[in-house]
C-alpha cells in the first residue's frame, strides 16, 4: 500500500496553541529536578500557555493558580528512533530513494501506544520511517500526550546499514499484469527497475549522485539545510556514515550500534548526535562502554525505543545499566532527557525544566533515575495528560 496515498487527519499545528491571555499555573513539589544540574527542594515551576515561564525554589504566585504536588517533579523523557509506533505501516519498496516521503502524513498521533508512552513518563518521541531503501524520507518528532507534531523535527532518513539491501526489488509482487507473468528487464537483464542496489559501494554511489543533484530532496541535507538521520549498525558502517557527514557538512543524528564508543572522537569531530540502539544482544558490555566513551567525549546521545511490549521500562533499564557501569546519576538521567533532545537538535524546546522550554513535566513518587520510582502524573505542553 503506498505510504504516500494515506491521508491522515493529523493535527499538524507546528507550535503549541497560543492563547493570548492563557492562565498561569504554578506547580509546587517536594523536589524539582531541573535537569540542568540544580534540584530545588521544595521547588516551583511557573507554566503559561504550554511553556515554562520560570523555575526556582520559590516564585511569586500572585495571579496564578498553585498546584500542590507530593513527590519529585522532572522533565519528560525523550525517546529516539522508534519503529513500534508506526503500527502496520507498509515498508515502501517502490524505490531505492524516497526523498519526498513524509512519515508525518502516515502517522496517527492519537493511537493508544502514544498514550501509554505518556503515562510512563515519555513526553517526546522521535520516529524514523521503517525502510528497506537507501533514503526513506522524512521522519517526525511528536509529543506523546497531546499528539502534537513538531514542525521542525523532520530529519531525512539515510541508511548506511545492510537493512537497505533487500532481495525483492520488484514492486509488482503479487500484482497480476493480466495474461500471466511478464517482466521488465533492467538495463542489463536484471529485473530491477527500481534501481535497488545490493552492495555498500553501489549504495554509496547512488547516495553521492542524489546529494549532488540539486533537484533531489536529498541534496538539502548537504550543508545542514535539512537535518539527517544516518542509520548504521556496525563500526564500519558508522565510520562510513561519519565520513559522509563530514564530506557534505551534514547535521543531525547518527543511529549507531553498541560498538560506537570506539569512534567517539570521530563522532565528536563530525558534530552529529547519537541514537544508541542500546541493547540488541543480551550482553550490554559494549553498549555501556560506548555510553561512557560518548559521555567522556562530550557527544550528546539518547537511547532508541526497542522492546515492543515494554518500551519505557527498557529505556529506564538502559539508563540504569549505564549508571552501574560508571555513569553518574545526572549523566544517565541526561541521556533520557536533555542529551537525547540535543542529539536531535531540540535542546531549545524539550528535555529540561528551563525557562522557555515546553512544559513537559512528570511527577514521580521517588528519584526520577531510580527504577523503584513510579510515574504519578504527566503534563505535556502544559496540559495534564494522565494521573495515577
Amino acid at each position, binding site marked *: 500500500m503506498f505510504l504516500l496515498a494515506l491521508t491522515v487527519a493529523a493535527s499538524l499545528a507546528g507550535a503549541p496553541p497560543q492563547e493570548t491571555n492563557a492562565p498561569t499555573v504554578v506547580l509546587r513539589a517536594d523536589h524539582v529536578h531541573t535537569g540542568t544540574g540544580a534540584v530545588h527542594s521544595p521547588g516551583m515551576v511557573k507554566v503559561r500557555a504550554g511553556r515554562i515561564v520560570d523555575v526556582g525554589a520559590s516564585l511569586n504566585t500572585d495571579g496564578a493558580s498553585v498546584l500542590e504536588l507530593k513527590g519529585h517533579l522532572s522533565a519528560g523523557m525523550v525517546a529516539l528512533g522508534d519503529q513500534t509506533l508506526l503500527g502496520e505501516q507498509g515498508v515502501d519498496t517502490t524505490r531505492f530513494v524516497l526523498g519526498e516521503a513524509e512519515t508525518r502524513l502516515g502517522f496517527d498521533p492519537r493511537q*493508544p501506544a502514544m*498514550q*501509554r508512552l505518556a*503515562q*510512563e513518563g515519555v513526553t517526546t518521541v522521535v520516529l524514523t520511517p521503517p525502510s528497506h531503501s537507501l533514503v526513506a524520507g522524512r521522519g517526525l518528532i511528536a509529543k506523546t500526550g497531546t499528539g502534537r507534531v513538531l514542525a521542525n523535527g523532520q530529519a531525512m532518513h539515510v541508511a548506511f546499514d545492510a537493512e537497505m539491501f533487500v532481495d525483492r526489488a520488484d514492486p509488482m509482487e503479487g500484482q497480476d499484469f493480466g495474461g500471466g507473468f511478464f517482466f521488465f528487464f533492467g538495463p542489463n537483464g536484471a529485473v530491477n527497475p527500481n534501481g535497488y542496489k545490493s552492495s555498500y559501494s553501489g549504495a554509496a554511489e547512488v547516495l553521492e549522485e542524489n546529494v549532488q543533484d540539486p533537484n533531489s530532496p536529498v541534496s538539502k541535507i548537504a550543508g545542514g539545510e535539512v537535518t539527517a538521520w544516518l542509520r548504521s549498525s556496525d563500526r564500519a558502517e558508522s565510520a562510513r556514515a561519519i565520513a559522509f557527514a563530514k564530506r557534505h557538512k551534514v547535521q543531525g543524528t547518527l543511529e549507531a550500534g553498541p560498538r560506537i564508543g570506539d569512534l567517539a572522537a570521530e563522532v565528536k569531530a563530525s558534530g552529529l548526535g547519537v541514537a544508541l540502539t542500546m541493547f*540488541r*544482544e*543480551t*550482553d550490554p*558490555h559494549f553498549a555501556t562502554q560506548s555510553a561512557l566513551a560518548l559521555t567522556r567525549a562530550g557527544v550528546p546521545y539518547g537511547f532508541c525505543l*526497542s*522492546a*515492543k*511490549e*515494554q518500551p519505557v*521500562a*527498557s529505556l*529506564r*533499564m538502559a539508563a*540504569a*545499566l549505564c*549508571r*552501574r557501569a560508571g555513569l553518574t*546519576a545526572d549523566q544517565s538521567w541526561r541521556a533520557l532527557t536533555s542529551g537525547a533532545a540535543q542529539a536531535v537538535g531540540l535542546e531549545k524546546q524539550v528535555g529540561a525544566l528551563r525557562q522557555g522550554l515546553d512544559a513537559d513535566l512528570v511527577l514521580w*513518587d*521517588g528519584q526520577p*533515575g*531510580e*527504577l*523503584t*520510582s*513510579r510515574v504519578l502524573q504527566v503534563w505535556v505542553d502544559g496540559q495534564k495528560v*494522565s494521573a*495515577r
Partner: protein
Amino acid sequence: MRFLVKRSPFLLAVGLASSISTGWAQEANGSHDWEGSLVAAAPSETPFALQDGNEEEGKPKEANAQKDDSKDDSKDDDEKKSKAKKKDKDKDEEKPEPLSLAAPQGPVLYLKGERVIVRPGKEIENGQVIVRDGRIMAVGTDLEAPEGARVLEGAVICAGFMDSFSTLGLDRASLTTSGSEPSARTVDALDFFGPDHDRQNALKAGVLVAESHIAMNADFGGTGVLLRTGWAHDPEKRLLTDESAMWSRLERSGNVVTRVEEVDSLISKLESGGDYLKSWRTYETKLAEWEKEIAELEEELEKDFKKAKKDREKDIEKAKEKGKEHKEKRHKEPKPPRKPRFDPDKEILGRVIEGKMPLVVVATRAAVLRNLLEATKPFPSLRLVIAGGDQALHVAPELAARKIPVMVWPSEPLSSSSVPSDTRGSLELAGDLARAGIPVVIGSGFSGSSAALPLYASLAVGYGLPEEHALAAITTRPAAAFGMQNELGQVRRGRRAELLILDGDPLAVGTQVQFAISGGEVVLEPQK
C-alpha cells in the same frame, strides 16, 4: 561455556504482558483486566502479611542450625516507600554467645555497617556481624571485634542475593536438551572454564548464590544445584547442595489434550517413585523377618542334628535291607524375599514426593495450574513450587492457602509462541501475586542474566511490588523455596556467611557492592 542467546529478540518483561496499561487503567477505574479478577483492585486497601513461606519445617541441617520457630509475620503498613518502624513480635535472641574455643579454620571477619538488614523488614542501626568457619557467629549492636579478625566496614550489610533460576555454568546442549532423565545430575554438567563474564558480573552485582539446572524442556529435567558464584572454580566449595530441586516442565506441547496428560503423567511418575521406595522398605522389613526365622530354624536343626543323624543311619540300613535306594528327607524352608531392581529414576522421584527435595513445575496457563493443584492435593508432603505462573492469579487463593511460592522471571514465558499474547505476565504480576498473599520469588530466567537480578527486583517495585517483598524475593523467599531457610537469606546467627557490604540501599540503581563474603571468606573487594 557462556550461553549467548541469539534467538528471537528477548523482550523485557517481569512476565511482561502487553497489558501494561492495566497498571494505569486499573487504578483509574478499579477493574482489573484479568477476566473476572479475584483480586481487589486498589492495592493500598488490601492489608497483606509478609509471610515467610514455609519457614518452619525446613530441611534438617547439620548440628548447630538453630531451630527457628519464631514466626515473624510483621504487619507491613504499605503506603508506598515509607520505612515506618514495624512492631516486631519475635524475641530478640541476638545475645552474643561465648565464642567456641577451638581455633578457627578459615578467616575470622568482623563486619560493621550503618544499617544491618537482618531480613527484609527488620534492620539494626550501626550493627556488627562476626563471621567464623563459614558461619555467622553473632549479630548485634555492641559486639567487639575478636582479636585477629579482619575488619570490614560499609554503609549497608545484607544477605547475599540469590538467583532462583539462572543458567550459570551450563552449556547450551545441557540447557535445552529434552532427553534427560530424573536421575541426571546438573553437577556433572557444570562448566566454568569457558568465558566467565556472566558469572563475574553476577558476583559484582551481589548475586552470591545461583540455582542452575539442566534440561529446561524435559518432563523431568534432573536435580539442580545451588552454587556459590564466588567459588565457581573450586569443585567442592562451589556447591551448597547438588540436589536443590527436581525441575519439571509442563505445556511442552501446543495442544490442549496433551497438556492435560502431561499433569497426569507427572503425578503418576511421582507416585511410582513413592511406591518404589515403599517396595524397598517392605523388602527390608521382610528380609529382616526372614533372617530371624532362618536363624531360629538353624538353631533348631543344630539342636537335633545328632538325632537326625541316627535316624538317617537307621533309614539307610532299612533301605539297604529292602534293596531300595535311600531317599533323603525333603527339606522345606521359607524362600528369601525378592530384592526389587535398582532404578535410579524412581528412587529420586520417590524422594521428591516424600518432600526430601522441592519440585519446581514450570507452567503458565490457569487451566494447567488448576489441574496441577488439584492433582497434588493428595500429597501433602510434596513441596511444590510454581515457576512462570503468568496466569497464577486465577488460582491465587489456593496458592496462598497452600503457601506455594511462585517464581517470576523477567523474560517472555518459555513457550512464547504457544502462549496467547494476552496471558503473558505483566510487570505488575509480581505485585499482584504479593497482594494475593502468594510468596513471590524473582529469578533471572531462561534468557535472563543473573547480574541484573537486583535491577529486576527494583523494576518490580516500580510496578507495584512493595519494597520488602522485592528484597525478600531475591533473599529469603528463594532460600525457603529450596529448603535452605535455616541456612541462607538472613543475617542471623548460625546461618551460612553469604553476606554483602553495599554502599547504598540494595534496590537503588547506583548501589555498588563494596565487599562480598561467601563461604565465610571475602570473595570480592574493591581493587586497590
